[in-house]
């Protein structure tokens, strides 16, 4: 196989189809001249690709229409979400204290009191809990 030319760039750019790609790779592996060429081509390609992407002068392109609105709204959405999360969190944490679950829950919650006062019954305590009395 003669030395590679445009195939080197096409290889780097992913523009060779399966068979061509394989043939080019095999050739490069066995030909040091083409391997050196490939390296040089890759280096210059990387330099051009590394050119900074410049900003267009301000006012040249239309401003992103919804961006400020989105940003402001997203702050509020975030705030509302945070408040909601805190509320839900608080509700979840406080729920066992204000709501009556199973008898087992009550037994756990009042276990200490029950052990100190054998006449105390969690079931009896339910109405008191709900009225807050």
């Amino acid at each position, binding site marked *: 196989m003669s030395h590679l030319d445009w195939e080197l760039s096409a290889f780097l750019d992913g523009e060779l189809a399966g068979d061509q790609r394989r043939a080019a790779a095999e050739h490069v592996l066995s030909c040091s001249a083409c391997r050196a060429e490939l390296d*040089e081509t890759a280096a210059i390609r990387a330099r051009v690709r590394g050119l900074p992407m410049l900003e267009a*002068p301000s006012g*040249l392109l239309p401003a*992103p229409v919804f961006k400020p609105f989105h940003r402001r709204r997203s702050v509020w959405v975030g705030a509302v979400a945070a408040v909601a999360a805190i509320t839900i969190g608080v509700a979840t944490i406080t729920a066992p204290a204000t709501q009556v679950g199973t008898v087992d829950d009550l037994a756990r919650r009042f276990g200490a009191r029950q052990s100190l006062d054998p006449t105390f019954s969690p079931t009896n305590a339910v109405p008191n809990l709900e009225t807050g009395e």
Partner: protein
Amino acid sequence: MDEGFPLTWEEVARIHGRKIYNFAYRLSGNRDDAADLVQEVLLRVRRGLADYQPGSFDGWLWRITRNAFLDEVRRRQRRPTTPLPEEIDRFHQATSPSVEEELAMLRLGDEVQAALASLPFEFREAVVMCDVIGLSYEEISQAVAAPIGTVRSRIHRGRKLLREQLR
């Protein structure tokens, strides 16, 4: 990008305007010329949207851009010139913490930019479309209205010429 054409010209401007600007800048080496070209291209896009046929949007857009660029060059009857120390001043004012890095990058970029400016137009155009804009060979072929084989050899030849310049 083979779906019909759901974009307005403003959306084209927002999505592609910066790339068009960089394309023109890398070809011309002149920021004012690049800005003028962006305006001209957007005008043509606006006029052309009604006639747009589903196909390769990038091929279509870059053909418009390239033709506008060539028309402008012909109109002014002067060759694109080389850049650009103004870039450095612009970045000097930036408050970014990596100003040093950006300056170094720009200086390196200057060499590449100057080397690009030395290439014949067809090679410069092919390399910029491939390596700055990131178009595929097929898209470049549509944009410059040349067979893909021609595009391949222009890109490779362009890179070889750049190497010689930057050696």
